């Protein structure tokens, strides 16, 4: 699904460079009843956000090519329209590296689906029901 096909304000943005994990997250969240837009790096995500999209939350990986998670987060904070969007950082690096990013929550890989669902439920209107 491309960004243009979803409701610009009722979706979750998944930013993850690993294709398998990215696809799996998108499918799992859709199965839970959410709209999902996915991006393979920070630059693609930023393009989507600057096009006017306002996701209810961003699931953000840190280490990515082209534009990493830290950079994307800094760009979002610079833009008043984007700064308030809840961001869940997903990291495989140690807690020390994730400390450098301002996030709503940091979750550590390997990810636990039940935790993700709880986070999403707290920030996004439930699409499935």
């Amino acid at each position, binding site marked *: 699904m491309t960004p243009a096909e979803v409701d610009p304000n009722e979706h979750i943005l998944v930013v993850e460079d690993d294709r398998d*994990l990215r696809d799996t997250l998108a499918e799992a969240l859709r*199965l*839970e009843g959410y709209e999902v837009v996915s991006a393979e790096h920070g630059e693609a995500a930023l393009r989507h956000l600057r096009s006017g999209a306002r996701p209810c939350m961003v699931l953000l990986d840190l280490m990515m090519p082209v534009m990493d998670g830290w950079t994307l987060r800094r760009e979002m904070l610079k833009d008043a329209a984007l700064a308030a969007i809840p961001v869940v950082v997903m990291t495989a690096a140690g807690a020390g590296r994730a400390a450098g990013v301002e996030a709503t929550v940091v979750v550590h890989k*390997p990810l636990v689906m039940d935790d993700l669902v709880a986070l999403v439920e707290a920030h996004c209107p439930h699409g499935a029901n």
Partner: protein
Amino acid sequence: MSATEKRETTVAVERLAPNEVPDLLDLLIEQVVDYAIFVLDRNGNIASWNAGAQRIKGYTPIEIIGQPYALFFTDEDRAAGKPAHILASARAHGRYHEEGWRRRKDGTRFWASVVMTALRDESGAVRGYAKITRDLTERRRAEEEARVAAAERASRQQAELDEREVRRSRDQLDLILRSVAEGVTAQRPDGRLVFANEAAARLSGFDSVAAMLAAPIDEMPRRFEMLREDGTSFPFEELPGRRALRGEATTATVRFKDRRTGEERWSFVSGAPVFDAEGRVEIAVNVFRELTEQRRSEAAWQFLADVSATLGASLDYEVTLKKVVELAVPRIADWCGVDVVEPDGHLEPLAVAHVDPGKLELAREWRRRWPPRPESLAGRVARSGTPELISEITTAMIEAGTPDLEQRRMALELGLRSVMVVPLRVGNETIGVLTFVTAESGRRFGAQDLVLASEVARRASLAVENARAYTEARLAVQTRDNFLAIASHELRTPLSALSVMTTSLVRAAGQGRLLSLGEDALKDRMVKADRQTRQLARLIDRLLDVSRLSTRDLRLERETLDLVEVARDVVSRYEDAAAERGSRIELKTSGETTGYWDRGRLDQVITNLVGNAIKYAPGAAVTVSVSGGGGHARLTVRDEGPGIPLEHQERIFDQFERASPSEDLPGMGLGLWLVRRIVAAHGGAITLDSRPGTGATFSVVLPMR
């Protein structure tokens, strides 16, 4: 006259007519001149006198008859009552005999043999005394002379004996003084030497005792600069020998520095005065003991102890070796340098120390301008691993060893005296050399010094070995920690996908929504899960491979193969992945490309390089070229992607380094490290040529065999 004499006389005159005998006897008595024969009356007065008496005693009969016979005695004998005593003795025993001094009329003394016989009548009453005196003066003189002569002879013999004894003990003392290790001299108050033993001459730098005794008084201060232990000047008049001349007994440690050669000797000197009967200094005795060797030995032990302490203080072997060099100067050498053997075999100066800080820069410049050449002493020791000593550096040696004229001029100017070079050996490998040089001090290295230097090198080598082992161990621990961090990081992402997917399906099943997904969607998820599981397994295999290679040597399984075949396999495997990312791979070949290599490992090399190119340069063209010739095969993998920033290029072949994070392929930053190890194990080399914006080219050159 005794009875026996009377009988003999009687016999002698028996042949005469009986009436003739008394007359003859009278004549005999009267005319005998060798004996004084006379008679004393009962009171000791002289009653008769013969010619002999007159001759011996000097009195005429008229003068003496009637006089007491005590006149013949010396004053002392008279005073002692000797005349009466003799009469009494003759009376009591019939006869008295003695030898003793008597007096002549003129007062002179003579040595007399005297026999006094009491003359008795038929009734036994003493009527008078017969006295016979003989002058024994001549005999006595002869005897006396003989005695004196004998005594003189005896005394002369004794004197000779005494003299021989004195000479013998003086020779012994001389021998002792000559053979002692201590230098002994005796000096007169005017400073003139009157005695010196061999040791004194040798220690003072004279060829012989005679030369020392003949030298002018100021020869010693002219030859030597005298220093106290602390290196300050020792005033000449304060030396123990000079003070001894002033009556003081003192001792001191004195450093004698040869003004000509700069050589220095340490002595323990004691000076003591010998006084004459009037209490004036007659002679000053100087004893000096050589301390140089003892000092050197002490310094050597102290140096070794300091070196050992230093060696334990740091695990950085360069720091350690620099310290050793500094410690060696000035105690062991005037210069000390350490050179390390570089991987290509040449010697690289690491540190140098010089006794004179002013010359340190000169020493450094020397080493910079003329680093040790393979044919130099240091180069030879580095190659052979055998210590070398040149006790005495000759001008000819310097000329032979310095083809550069400027270097020769400097070498001659520096006054190099002695040199030794010892290898630093770790295991069977020579990792460097220590060079010790003397110049200013004038000291010459000997076998003992070489033993010391070798011991220093042995300890330093051991420290280097320990430091290396420690560094390696630390690196291994660090590698393992990095490995675990990267490994866990790399495993977390595929594990996340697998976990999210299965949990998601479990949740859907729990909510009764699983079947609503439809068979195709479910199958798609199962295929992905299967792929992710296999990817995890592959990842674990690679991690184990890398882990093994980090700690062990890479073993190759060589076979004869064509590198083009291996490259073609890899390219065909990647064609789909490349196309998916908008890239295309091209393979170019030329020349003979068959060699004796490990197929599996070379597959890994090409897989890594091609995988990286596709990963980091999506959408760009990738060209793999394989060519051969001149005993080598060359493989290049070129992409036209964004290129690799310069700051990453330097470390890109290190373990756990990567230019940027991975995407599809699990990149642990181990790929290029592994590639380099495999290429090196084949005896080849890998290089990277890249500038940001113009792509990257990795080139591998492999020897055919």
